[in-house]
């Protein structure tokens, strides 16, 4: 049996662990750790720049979990080394402390959210002085320097990351992107034999979700033996090469059905919009179990 971990778009390992332990009441020993780690690696792969501190932190936590779990699986050695035992508790306490801290701020965030909502029901008066008086006020621009103006323009023009969530899901524009279409797009972009960086295959796509789906398309093509994937260095560009007719298989469109595009794309899109608190259950990315989710350097 074993607990099947589905991996919604959690904001990292703490979120995920808290969810599993507190909400699902899962005993960590019953969890398969691989999906958690896969999920994390997939996320890291999506990042443009890897924050080494955070990545290291995750490794430490993952290692602690693996160790805790491994010990659990092995029969206890007869005499227990006291030092080792202490170290083990130390590791566990560290993880526990981190989780408690994370939980504390999650609850604080909840309180702040409530205050924000409450306060959003009152509106401040912004009209300012009425007619004769408004002429009296010193000219506002006199206090503004050219540099301030330019900074304001830069601030206003810098594309704002859209991480906001609307109140209900109806407002979310779901980008309907299908893996099938992405496969066609990828095939159209790939030259006969030259390897192309994956980066080039997503040039010009308008949303992250499209890029993700193109990536999935590449994985599908790889699985079907149509293309070859190669990554020379850690975090290096993923090279995508079309296999020559002789070495490649036929594209099996039938198997694409397992994608259930209608389901998968909205799920991905929703995940990209960042989850609403209670919507975790609906945002699992529908990745078939047989999938090579990570592409490691060869």
């Amino acid at each position, binding site marked *: 049996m074993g607990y099947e971990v589905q991996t919604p778009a959690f904001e990292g390992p703490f979120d995920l662990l808290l969810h599993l332990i507190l909400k699902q009441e899962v005993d960590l020993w019953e969890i398969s750790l691989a999906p958690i780690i896969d999920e994390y690696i997939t996320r890291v792969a999506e990042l443009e720049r890897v924050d080494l501190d955070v990545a290291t932190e995750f490794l430490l936590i993952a290692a602690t979990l693996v160790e805790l779990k491994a010990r659990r699986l092995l029969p206890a050695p007869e005499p227990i080394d006291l030092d080792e035992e202490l170290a083990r508790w130390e590791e566990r306490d560290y993880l526990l402390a981190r989780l408690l801290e994370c939980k504390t701020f999650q609850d604080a965030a909840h309180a702040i959210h409530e205050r924000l909502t409450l306060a959003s029901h009152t509106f401040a008066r912004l009209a300012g*002085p009425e007619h004769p008086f408004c002429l009296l006020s010193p000219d506002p*621009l006199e206090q*503004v320097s050219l540099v301030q*103006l330019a900074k304001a323009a830069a601030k*206003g023009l810098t594309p704002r990351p859209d991480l906001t969530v609307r109140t209900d899901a109806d407002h979310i524009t779901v980008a309907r992107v299908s893996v099938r279409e992405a496969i066609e797009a990828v095939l159209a972009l790939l030259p006969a034999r030259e390897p192309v960086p994956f980066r080039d295959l997503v040039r010009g796509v308008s949303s992250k979700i499209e890029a993700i789906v193109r990536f999935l398309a590449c994985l599908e093509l790889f699985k079907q033996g149509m293309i070859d994937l190669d990554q020379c260095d850690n975090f290096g560009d993923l090279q995508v090469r079309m296999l020559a007719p002789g070495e490649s298989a036929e594209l099996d469109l039938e198997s694409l059905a397992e994608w259930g595009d209608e389901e998968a794309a909205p799920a991905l899109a929703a995940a990209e919009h960042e989850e609403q608190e209670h919507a975790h259950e609906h945002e699992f990315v529908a990745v078939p179990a047989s999938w090579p989710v990570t592409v490691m350097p060869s």
Partner: protein
Amino acid sequence: MIDRSITAAVEAILLVATEPVEPGVLAQLVEVPRATVEDACAQLVSEYSHDERGFTIGRVAGGYRFQTDATQAPYVERFVLEGQTARLSGPALETLAIVAYKQPISRAQLSAIRGVNVDATLRTLVQRGYVEESGHEPTPGNPSLFSTTSVFLEKLGIDSLTDLPPLADFIPDAHVVEALERGLRIPVAAAASNGAADSTGDGSD
């Protein structure tokens, strides 16, 4: 006597309004006849006066608005003169700056860039004389295009728009091109030749 729920709604709406609100609009919002709105306002005026409030409701330009009571003018003048109200709010300054760098620009383009409705801010800027309607876009509906005025240049102490510091100096690298593209209209001929590559000179044309 008008019901409290009606006067309270009228008070709340007038409090947040930045321009006089027509009785018809108030009537629609509060879902009562226009005459009721007018009675409500009259009643409020008399209550405020009876309670010796520092404000009243005035009827100007066909609408109602909150205004200070004439007896309090000395205090209001002092407050306004000290410049407490004179700062351009962050959003207003950003909108003005975007007009400066992206002119001529339509209301819709501004709203798209700012991510919010800019009507109120734009009105303030026009009232202040910093921004003016400078033409119309040759698209359906002929939306107005806005540009900065010579008053704007004067206040900033510069001769022409070319004296504005290049925007590229203030935008983090990765965002420059995208930011510049966002604000760009597609003036048919220019876009074809320059595209977005022309980053620094953008403010000047």
